[in-house]
């Protein structure tokens, strides 16, 4: 089916609201005692929710831009609209969300015995919140989804978590809320300066012209996208406010002569507002302290969704908001140094702390801090390789860390302990399980032929291009990653079975295989032939690089030929093809 036709059928709304509909059906039509019926329904419904998201793969990669656009008036008094749309990046991230959702629901079949109805309703609600964040094209709508998501996650950890769940749940809630409310103020500031610059300022005519040119660049030549942005710009030009994300990007990218329309100083403040929210979500060092608690205390499904999808919302935020809306702040040397510095600290610190963990789940949690640092590094080297790698690595991290949490869940369900010292020699009793764990360990540490390698390779290539010292430092993270993962594997899987209880553990059941197989397939697929995935990112990434570093491709060529540091920062109407194709 063509993209227009699907947009006509409100495909994005369907994908977003289906899980919520399922939650309502569960609450209204099922009694709490019908546990198996509830489980069956939830499993059925989450798969049902996955199917329409597959249609998003029909995203037209040659046209690029925002597609499947839906646009309805919502709160005209404040200019908030119900605008949905996806680009190549969010197509893949939405698919990841719906897929991880299936796994999360599947893995709860026997693990959750208490308040089953509420449990599945909460997970479905969470799905709606996460998908909504990815597909929102309106900042107000984005913000609503962004916060809505916190509530089900709070319940998921607080009600179905392990011993210290209440502490972890409220810590998660407060931490992430802290970030998002500050972001709200930054959003509001953007919201008010938009019509101010386009309508109220003395040189608004030039600003309008420049913003329109930037809109052409951002749309990547897609008329529908351009139309959407220009509608929002027209509102701003008549003094009315808008929350359109893409129009904000146009404002951020636009410049008058050599000066950005939004002054650098203001850009840095606003950048900081968004940064706090996203950095907490990612989480970047030093905002990561909620993560080990939340991951460890959450039920398996909660950890899988947290690691698999929720953390990506932070990195997605940087790619969608910070970079394109505040390009000058993002490429400001001081900012880049801080971002890269925090990322590298995160990589190394996360890995070192992971190595010292006695708790299996906590180890995986800290490995996330390290891996997410790598993704952040890839984003802030601000070149196509780094960004492509970072976005691919978001997917990879979802797959491998999601799988690692599922793996912990499998043994936890059998033994009810997460201490590494309680295991050992499991490969003798659970060979199938050991094989899956091995593959996922390798995927996590970036072994060639598996997904992690491609992502980390691209990121490191980008980092190397930017700064060799950064590359050297971040590579140590990979070495440390191999160390803690392999040591974990050795301590749990190899040797002789030391604990009596471990002698009689069942190997993976058919149901468990069912949720590991798709992850294994994806891990190999991305590892061997990543092109289909990368092809979705190419155009959006090229556009983002154009926004942040105008004339990036030329600049390098000029650098090679004449030794000039970079080309003048002028936005051209035509988007220049950058060089991300080199990888393929």
């Amino acid at each position, binding site marked *: 089916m063509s993209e227009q036709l699907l947009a006509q059928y409100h495909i994005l709304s369907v994908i977003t609201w289906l899980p919520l509909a399922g939650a309502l059906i569960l609450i209204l039509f099922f009694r709490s005692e019908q546990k198996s019926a509830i489980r069956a329904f939830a499993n059925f419904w989450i798969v049902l929710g996955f199917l329409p998201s597959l249609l998003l793969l029909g995203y037209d990669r040659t046209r690029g831009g925002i597609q499947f656009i839906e646009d309805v008036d*919502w*709160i*005209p*008094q*404040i200019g908030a609209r119900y605008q949905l749309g996806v680009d190549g990046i969010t197509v893949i991230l939405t698919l990841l969300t719906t897929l991880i959702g299936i796994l999360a629901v599947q893995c709860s079949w026997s693990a959750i015995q208490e308040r089953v109805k509420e449990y599945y309703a909460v997970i479905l609600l969470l799905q709606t919140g996460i998908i909504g964040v990815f597909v929102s094209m309106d900042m107000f709508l984005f*913000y*609503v989804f962004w*916060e*809505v998501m*916190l*509530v089900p996650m*709070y*319940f998921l950890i*607080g*009600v179905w978590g392990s011993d210290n*769940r*209440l502490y972890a749940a*409220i810590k998660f*809630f*407060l931490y992430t*809320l*802290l970030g998002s*409310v*500050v972001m*709200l*103020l930054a959003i*509001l*500031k953007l*919201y*008010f300066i938009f019509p101010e610059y386009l309508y109220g300022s003395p040189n608004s005519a030039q600003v309008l012209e420049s913003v329109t040119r930037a809109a052409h660049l951002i749309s990547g030549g897609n008329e529908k996208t351009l139309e959407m942005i220009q509608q929002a710009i027209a509102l701003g030009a008549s003094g009315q406010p808008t929350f359109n994300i893409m129009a904000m990007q146009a404002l951020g990218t636009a410049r008058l002569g050599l000066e950005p329309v939004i002054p650098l100083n203001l850009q840095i403040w606003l950048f900081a507002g968004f940064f706090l929210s996203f950095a907490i979500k990612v989480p970047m060092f030093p905002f990561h302290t909620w993560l080990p608690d939340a991951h460890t205390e959450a039920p398996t499904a909660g950890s899988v969704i947290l690691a698999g999808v929720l953390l990506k919302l932070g990195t997605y935020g940087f790619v969608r908001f910070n970079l394109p809306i505040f390009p000058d702040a993002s490429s400001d040397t001081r900012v880049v140094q801080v971002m890269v510095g925090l990322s590298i600290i995160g990589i190394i610190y996360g890995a070192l702390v992971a190595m010292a963990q006695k708790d299996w789940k906590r180890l995986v949690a800290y490995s996330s801090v390290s891996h997410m640092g790598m993704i952040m590094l890839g984003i802030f080297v601000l070149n196509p390789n780094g960004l492509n790698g970072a976005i691919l690595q978001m997917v990879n991290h979802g797959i491998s860390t999601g799988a690692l949490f599922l793996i912990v869940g499998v043994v936890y369900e059998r033994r009810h302990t997460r201490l590494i010292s309680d295991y050992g020699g499991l490969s003798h009793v659970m060979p199938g399980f050991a094989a899956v764990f091995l593959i996922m360990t390798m995927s996590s540490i970036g072994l060639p032929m598996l997904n992690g390698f491609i992502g980390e390779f691209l990121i490191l290539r980008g980092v190397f291009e930017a700064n060799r010292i950064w590359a050297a430092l971040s590579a140590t993270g990979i070495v440390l990653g191999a160390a803690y993962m392999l040591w974990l594997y050795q301590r749990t899987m190899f040797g002789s079975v030391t604990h009596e209880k471990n002698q009689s553990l069942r190997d993976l059941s058919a149901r468990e295989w069912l949720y590991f197989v798709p992850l294994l397939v994806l891990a190999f697929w991305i590892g061997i032939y990543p092109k289909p995935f990368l092809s979705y990112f190419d155009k959006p990434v090229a556009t983002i690089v154009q926004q942040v570093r105008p004339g990036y491709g030329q600049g390098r060529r000029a650098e090679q030929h004449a030794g000039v540091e970079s080309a003048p920062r002028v936005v051209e109407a035509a988007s220049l093809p950058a060089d991300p194709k080199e990888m393929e």
Partner: protein
Amino acid sequence: MSASLFIASGLDWRLLLQQGVALLMPEVLLTAFACFVLVLESTVKAEQRRWSAYASLGGIAASAVSLVQMYVQFKDTRVTGFYEMYVIDPFALAFKGIFLLTAGMAVVLSIQFLDVEHEQRGEYYALILFATTGMMFMASGADLLSIFISFELSAVAVYVLVAYFKADRKSNEASMKYFLLGVFASGLFLYGISLIYGLTGETNLSRIAAALATTQDIQSFGFLAFFGMALIACGLFFKVAAAPFHMWCPDAYEGAPSAVTAFMSVGAKAAAFAIFVRIFAAGLGALRGAPTEGGMGWAVLVAVVAALTMTWGNLAALTQSNAKRLMAYSSISHAGFLLLGLVAGNATGYQGMIVYLLVYVFMNLGAWGVLIALRRGKIAGDQVDSFNGLMRTHPVMAVMMTVFMLSLAGIPPTAGFIGKYLLFAGLIETGERWWTILAVVAVLNTVISLYYYARFIKAMFTAEATEREPLAASRGMRAALIVATIMVGIIGIYPAPFLKYARVAASGLSSAVSSPLVTIK
């Protein structure tokens, strides 16, 4: 003979009567029903006393109908009467609607509560109606004197309501504290009025505004004007329980019968905010000042008090174990949030205050409603622990309480978020650096507040139930709570119509001075 007497005294009684019919119908109906309830009380048997409640609900409904009629008649225009002491504009109508809503909810929440306490009597409902009448007059006050008198009318009724449990020492103590400090606040307020009157020679708000804006002499008496304004502000800070004038609030809220607390924490507070905005935006606009220009004025004063109130209320709420006290501190911090609209001083800010107060009716009365239902049989049900295990015993109640709590904390898509959003937006819209910092303080406070609201959620969902006795929630009360929940959802998800009307009300307010006055002839 009589006609000449009236003319001699300078009053046109026929005109006043006409205006009374045209402008006062909702208040007149409410007063009439209140008197009727008092008479009814003395004629019915003890077991029929619920009839008083039904009669007062009828009065509220009649008043609401007449209010709607008035809205249809006047739409978005501004009408004054009674020698410009009384005004009907969208702002007044919006607040009158909020008061009637509050009174209606409060009566519904009270019926079974009073049965449980064996205190079902008609004067309770009559007092609620009288208090509501006073509030409705407050919303329409266009003159400092009419505002003061209506202010006292509602305050006296509420003092009595707080002491309604005659045999309960706490109730008496609460009323005494509330009364003494309230009277003190009224004194401050009146002193401020006298200073402003002495300076401008006017008590009418729009004429005060005109005098302050034009008279050169006032510049030389700047200090006195500021002092008078500050006294009026202090009186109002007492009434809305803003720090550091909030000390009475936790004691009064804890000691008063829960249903009365529910009523006064929403109604009395909204009324005080209505006159706060009216006096400061329409009357004392010239004394506003702006921090960046180095001008001291009420904007800075209110900003400091707002920041202090939010933070103090929130920090004090963190450690409470008594749910009523916790909610009292929560309401203090909400007063701080509401003051932000005044600090912003633009249409968005005032719009935010109106929307927030409307939302506050539903979320706060809803929360108090659940709290009231916990009071059953011999169970006091006023601790945070009283909510333990509510999800298992009363899932619908628990879910509704969760919605109210999330809304109070301002989590979307609940209505509380829309209110907070508008208040923050008003501050950011000014573009002033100091107001942006204030907005940062405010958002950090929402994070703190989530912690104690989440304590209720935690108790309901994760703790084991300690009491098995069913809640004292009549069918009417359940219906009221469900309506409140649905409204919290509707305003949160589709706020457009509410924002639209609030915008009209707010913009009428800031341009009230300049807009042509229509006087009924």
